């Protein structure tokens, strides 16, 4: 019935292989390559839709499809298996849907790049790994996807490998992710080992884990450890404190990549993973708390940095980090549905934002190129007033900004409010988290509109020579923008909160995800308790907060453009810190990277070469020394030899006779 699931990852894989092997020599033409790439993803989107619909009409919502055995060693029996349930279904739609849009977009955006084929094969490969991650029926298959996406993000960030910065960013991304994977592996091992040796359940299959997880005992140390390890993995993948530093650098990659990987899909893997293991996490309140706090902290921390960035993509990157913070907040307070919900909506509007920025950069790049200028096409200080040149981009960008700012009835509104509501009212939530969240929301609104204004409004700061070269992008670019904008607008209605559900549509999403989350939420009674009135009140409040943010932005960047300069002048030190991202990268270099290298050098020069080889060669030298010493006993004088003999005799006789 669901036995063709494997088709979903299969198409992108094929696409990747075809483009990778034949792209350069055989296919050549961008059209063909792009078509293949896009088609592959589109196909798997179709298949996913088909199964999604099938699932809607199906009582049994959880299906574990086993392909064949992977490793069978003693108690460790790992299969290649897929898990298809509402959660993965939604993710599938998001990944393949947004994915195919972005492929389409890329055809236009990457036009004329020499590594075109390479790009598309990587992109398909990424979709494949992401689908493996999503569909993975056990922790290990998920891990394949988990590291696979890491690999692809490495490849795509390093797409412009001639740029050293790109190479560094790629390496950084992979290594930091590796740190996360380290946590993932440890969690996996501990889980497998504890369940097996103590409760006789040797498994890493998600369904069985969900089934037998309770054996570990609520709040027990081991489960806390396990979940914390997994969460470490999540922080790596989803760029949370302390492992978020790679994401901003990842903007070295082509913009569509940033949209797909570093906004819509990969970075949300952590959230997804926690959702997968909600049973376990729910059992560890301490971990939940940690998750919530880290999420909140990241949300606000990243937002602060977002204030002072001038690179349009960096702004978006930090906003992504901060939005991911929101999602983790949701997970932390037990609002699993809300988390996934926000994940989805975020995918829409953030993808839209990135693609919009891409469109802008694309335009700017062309313009500057035509004018033979080498200003930075990504620097917002060179932009402004682009609205009249590229209306579509402006419109979609604006809509997404509204959405992310949580303006009523845009997608962001529903998801974010649900998160805030849960963080306020959930049995695992707390006032503190809510406050932090709200402030973050306000800041988000502020810097997003700052970005919007600096880019599209005000008077144009672009070099006059480039001015008239700026124009709207081709349809392959704008079409995805429009689609995503629409989604960003209406996407929210799948999850209308109970409180304002005037037409009793019901929270479709919640109902749909129920089979995955409700059991947990009931078992460990995680729920948002509170009257509808409070909820509505909070909603209004948060809208107001959002509006404040927007207002401040408007004042500072529309009405009184001189203000920002004043501020930076006033709080120059603060500004410098914020501008330099609180010097976190430098801190890490100082604390971890450099000591490692130094120690490595020490080990090599001072230990390997000096000590060990010193000893080894030392034996040699000593031997030679003794040798060249002894050889001079051989004086060549007969009488010395005779004396030697006599001494020998005397000693021997002396020893035996006298001794």
């Amino acid at each position, binding site marked *: 019935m669901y036995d063709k699931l494997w088709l979903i990852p299969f198409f992108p894989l094929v696409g990747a292989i075809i483009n990778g092997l034949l792209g350069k020599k055989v296919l050549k033409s961008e059209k063909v390559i792009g078509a293949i790439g896009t088609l592959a993803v589109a196909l798997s989107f179709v298949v996913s839709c088909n199964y999604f619909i099938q699932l809607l009409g199906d009582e049994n919502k959880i299906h574990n499809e086993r392909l064949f055995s992977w490793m069978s060693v003693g108690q460790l029996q790992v299969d290649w298996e897929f898990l298809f349930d509402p959660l993965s279904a939604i993710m599938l739609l998001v990944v393949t849907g947004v994915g195919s849009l972005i492929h389409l977009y890329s055809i236009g955006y990457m036009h004329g790049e020499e590594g075109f084929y390479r790009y598309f094969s990587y992109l398909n490969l990424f979709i494949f790994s992401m689908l493996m991650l999503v569909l993975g029926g056990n922790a290990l298959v998920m891990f394949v996807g988990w590291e696979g996406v890491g690999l692809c993000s490495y490849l795509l960030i390093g797409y412009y490998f001639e740029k050293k910065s790109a190479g560094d960013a790629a390496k950084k991304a992979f290594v930091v992710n590796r740190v996360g994977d380290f946590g993932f592996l440890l969690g996996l091992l501990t889980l497998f080992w504890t369940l097996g040796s103590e409760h006789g359940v040797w498994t890493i299959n998600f369904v069985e884990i969900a089934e037998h997880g309770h054996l570990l005992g609520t709040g027990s140390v081991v489960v806390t450890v396990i979940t914390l390890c997994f969460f470490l993995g999540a922080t790596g993948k989803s760029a949370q404190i302390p492992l978020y530093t790679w994401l901003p650098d990842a903007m070295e990659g082509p913009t569509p990549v940033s949209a797909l990987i570093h906004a819509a899909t990969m970075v949300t893997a952590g959230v997804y993973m926690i959702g997968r293991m909600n049973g376990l996490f729910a059992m560890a309140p301490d971990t939940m708390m940690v998750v919530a706090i880290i999420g909140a902290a990241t949300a606000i921390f990243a937002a602060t940095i977002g204030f002072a960035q001038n690179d349009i993509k960096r702004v978006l990157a930090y906003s992504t980090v901060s939005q991911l913070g929101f999602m983790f907040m949701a997970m932390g307070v037990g609002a699993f549905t809300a988390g996934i919900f926000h994940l989805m909506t975020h995918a829409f509007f953030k993808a839209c934002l990135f693609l919009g920025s891409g469109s802008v950069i694309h335009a700017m790049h062309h313009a500057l190129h035509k004018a033979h200028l080498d200003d930075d096409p990504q620097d917002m200080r060179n932009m402004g007033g682009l609205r009249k040149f590229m209306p579509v981009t402006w419109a979609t960008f604006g809509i997404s900004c509204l959405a992310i700012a949580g303006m009523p009835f845009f997608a962001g509104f529903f998801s974010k409010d649900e998160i805030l509501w849960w963080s306020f009212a959930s049995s695992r939530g707390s006032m503190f988290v809510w406050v932090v969240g709200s402030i973050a929301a306000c800041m988000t609104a502020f810097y997003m509109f700052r970005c919007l204004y600096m880019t599209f409004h005000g008077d144009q700061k672009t070099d006059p020579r480039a001015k008239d070269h700026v124009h709207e992008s081709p349809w392959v670019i704008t079409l995805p923008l429009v689609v995503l904008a629409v989604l960003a607008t209406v996407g929210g209605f799948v999850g209308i909160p109970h409180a304002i559900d005037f037409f009793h549509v019901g929270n479709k999403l919640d109902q749909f995800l129920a089979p995955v989350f409700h059991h947990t939420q009931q078992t460990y009674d995680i729920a948002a308790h509170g009257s509808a009135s409070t909820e509505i009140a909070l909603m209004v409040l948060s809208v107001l907060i959002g509006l404040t943010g927007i207002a401040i932005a408007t004042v500072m960047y529309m009405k009184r453009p001189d203000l920002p300069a004043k501020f930076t002048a006033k709080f120059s030190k603060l500004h410098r810190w914020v501008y330099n991202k609180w010097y976190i990268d430098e801190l890490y270099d100082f604390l971890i990277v450099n000591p490692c290298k130094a120690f490595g050098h020490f080990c090599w020069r001072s230990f390997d070469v000096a000590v060990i080889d010193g000893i080894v060669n030392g034996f040699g030298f000593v031997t030679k020394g003794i040798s060249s010493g002894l050889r001079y006993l051989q004086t060549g004088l007969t*009488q010395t030899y005779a*004396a030697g003999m*006599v*001494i020998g*005799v*005397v000693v021997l*006789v*002396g020893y035996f*006779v*006298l001794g």
Partner: protein
Amino acid sequence: MEIFYFYLLAVVVIISGFLVVTCKSPVNSAIALMMTFVCLANFYVMLHAPFMAAIQIMVYAGAILMLIIFTIMLLNLGTAVARKGSHSVVWATVLAFLIALQSYFVINRGRPSGTTGEITADLVAKVGHTELIARSLFTDFLLPFEIASILLLVAIVGAVVLVKKDV
């Protein structure tokens, strides 16, 4: 009576031995060595081995020593150029002294405890030493005797090979 004779001879032997070792000129050493041989021959007689005494004189004093002196003359080595390694002398003294000491010790502590055979002084007197030697040489010690002949052959050949001028 006999003991005095022994001591007298012993002293002479030791002195002459000492001279052999110390004389500057090899010729003098050779003479001293001759003296030693003769005295030893005396001892052999005292030990009821007249035949040994005889060949001691003949072989050693007669043949070997003559050969040596002949060589010395041939190579006309005067007094050995005295390259004195004094410290070597000290060491040598110590070692020689130690050897003497040890052997003295060995001889004192240990005692020859062999199975005593039937050859007694009066038997020697009755049968005659030469005949006894001859008997055993040609019965029991036939093989060593033959080997000895080969030995001499080898020595001759060797000497010839070493000294003859042309190839």
